[in-house]
């Protein structure tokens, strides 16, 4: 095992891999800082380019991009109140007022320290937890996988978006899209209508780029033309307004730790996501603060807490991906896409059969945090120029880069068309209130869900029925009890919420 760890570390510490991390973080920070380019969007656009590199350049680069773009999106949130990702919305609450007071530099330094702190905290939890969970997951058969995926989809459907029915429809629509192509067991055509390009199914990367990047550009284009022009930001010249002192850091440490714990727990559960973690941490920081009245008016904890929490999510949401091979949210789905195009299939078997790449990934993640900190420090003074890029120039560029990236994966014009169609579908979903993320997760999980389900049915038909099958699998029984308990708890919470929100008018809150 020690040998595997050392081999993995040496892969990530190779010069090319380090260069990949540095380039990834720098590009991620720049793109993330541009208003209108969300972190997911930036990474979706950049993933195809990593395909051209050796896996041990491409994967560290992509991990660096993700971490860099998360911090970059916080800069846009602080400086011009345009969160680069929904998760950075909580940062706007106090980051915006700090920037108005000329303390944009201090707010960004705080965001950087909090981001790296939260990220490192959850990466360590990921390293400790995923191996243990994978050791359990190696005992999983198709039945356990069906249960696990069904539970993930159920959680997503009930927790994503404001309306449970719309999230359910979105998740199931993802299953339909994921089923297009040749049948995995029989090889017969399914919704391909003779189109050869569809035989392998809808391409993951074009769909991700379309739904995450193109649809978001369309949403932004709806805004008034004045919104599409540039904005400017003023920084105070005072030194103390542009740095985070050691004393301030020590004062923030308990808040950073609590927020990182919140982010890590939320990130490990499928469907909750960084936005919820950021707001939970923000509320927690306000509740324990001795000066809660300062929140919303430029409190430094109001920047540190959501930043630590939303970055902590990014590490722990890889726990289900690496331990079970199941992405818990869109960030993990993007990372899964990058792993797959590089020929790496995450999951419990990888821990057992070929753990070296996983140790390399862990090392690259920790290194990327350090690089993110270093480059972030240097990048902060340049940020106010980045956030001033006019969107009316940016968005057409995004659309063309998205098309080029989609084409580059397989050299197929069909993928460019698929990207555009996916963008239109994502836009329609957003306009109608259907959350696109559950659709994406459903789409990604369909092949493994369907295959596992059909294998389970075949195994049961060869055995003495369902009851015997379930009773012969202790892990499955434990999962059934565990998931049933969680489902009942979630249902009770949801009904409580609906009752509270319909109390006054009799109308459901989400309608």
């Amino acid at each position: 095992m020690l040998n595997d760890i050392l081999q993995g570390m040496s892969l990530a510490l190779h010069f090319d891999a380090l260069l990949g991390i540095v380039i990834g973080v720098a590009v991620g920070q720049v793109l993330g800082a541009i208003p209108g380019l969300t972190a997911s969007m930036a990474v979706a656009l950049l993933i195809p380019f990593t395909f051209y590199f050796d896996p041990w350049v491409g994967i560290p680069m992509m991990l660096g991009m993700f971490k860099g773009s998360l911090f970059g999106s916080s800069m846009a949130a602080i400086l011009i109140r345009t969160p680069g990702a929904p998760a950075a919305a909580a940062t706007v609450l106090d980051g915006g007022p700090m920037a108005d007071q000329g303390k944009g530099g201090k707010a960004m330094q705080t965001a950087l320290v909090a981001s790296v702190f939260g990220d490192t905290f959850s990466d360590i939890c990921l390293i400790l937890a995923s191996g243990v969970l994978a050791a359990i997951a190696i005992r999983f058969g198709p039945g356990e996988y069906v249960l696990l995926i069904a539970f993930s989809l159920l959680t997503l459907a009930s927790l994503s978006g404001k309306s449970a029915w719309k999230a359910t429809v979105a998740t199931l629509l993802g299953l339909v899209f994921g089923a297009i192509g040749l049948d995995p067991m029989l090889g017969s055509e399914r919704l391909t209508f003779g189109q050869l390009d569809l035989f392998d199914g809808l391409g993951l990367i074009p769909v991700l780029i379309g739904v995450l990047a193109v649809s978001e550009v369309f949403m932004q284009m709806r805004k008034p033309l004045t919104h599409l022009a540039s904005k400017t930001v003023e920084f105070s010249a005072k030194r103390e307004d542009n740095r985070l002192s050691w004393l301030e850091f020590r004062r923030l440490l308990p808040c950073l730790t609590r927020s990182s714990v919140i982010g890590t727990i939320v990130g490990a559960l499928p469907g909750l996501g960084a936005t919820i973690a950021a707001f939970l941490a923000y509320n927690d920081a306000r509740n324990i603060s001795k000066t809660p009245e300062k929140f919303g008016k430029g409190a430094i904890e109001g920047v540190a807490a959501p930043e630590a929490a939303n970055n902590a999510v990014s590490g722990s949401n890889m726990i289900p991906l690496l331990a079970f091979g199941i992405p818990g949210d869109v960030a993990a789905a993007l990372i899964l896409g990058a792993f797959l195009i590089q020929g790496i299939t995450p999951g419990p078997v990888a821990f057992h059969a070929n753990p070296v790449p996983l140790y390399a990934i862990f090392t690259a993640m920790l290194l990327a945090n350090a690089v993110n900190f270093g480059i972030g420090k240097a990048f902060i003074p340049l940020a106010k120029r980045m956030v001033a890029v006019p969107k009316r120039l940016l968005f057409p560029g995004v659309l063309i880069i998205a098309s080029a990236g989609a084409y580059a994966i397989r050299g197929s014009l069909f993928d460019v068309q698929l990207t555009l169609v996916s963008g239109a579908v994502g836009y329609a979903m957003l306009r109608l209130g259907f959350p696109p993320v559950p659709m994406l997760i459903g789409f990604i999980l369909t092949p493994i869900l369907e295959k596992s389900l059909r294998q389970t049915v075949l195994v049961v038909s060869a055995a003495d029925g369902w009851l015997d099958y379930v009773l012969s699998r202790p892990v499955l029984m434990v999962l059934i009890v565990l998931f049933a308990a969680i489902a009942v708890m979630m249902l009770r919470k949801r009904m409580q919420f609906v009752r509270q929100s319909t109390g006054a008018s009799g109308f459901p809150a989400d309608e």
Partner: protein
Amino acid sequence: MRALNSEAMLAVAVLAGCALFSFVIVPAGVDTAFADPRDLGPRFILDIASAGMAVAALAALARIGFGRARAGEEAGADGDAAAPPTPEERKGARRVLIVLAALGVYAFVLIDLIGFYVASVVTLGAVTWLLGERRTLLVALYALVLTASIYVLFEIVLQSRLPKGWILQAAGLS
């Protein structure tokens, strides 16, 4: 009330879509000829998804109906009404449709016809103009510089070929 009605209409549209999918599209698009009787078959996941969507839409309709019944006459009050779209919002929606149409022409016609690079210069210019940038020289320069950057990245750095288009190929220019 308007928001409520649009929600109900959406649920009805989902129901209709599920019916169309299950009774027309799936039978026409799924080959079940070689299905093993012990296997769930290639339709199963599609049927489950469609049925699940229909149940979700029905549940939404039931909730809306239940909410209206409970709230009685008071419920339709103005407080629940969604504001009609402003002229600016209508313009925004129209802008997106025009850009979508332009991109449709780009992805389905132009790239194949005149190649990725020429098509990108034309589309970039057109979309930037549509988004309100009226400085012609800047628009042209931006379209050319960005496309040239993509050319350098793909053709020279990544050694990847983007489509040249059949007109250029027929003329022997690529």
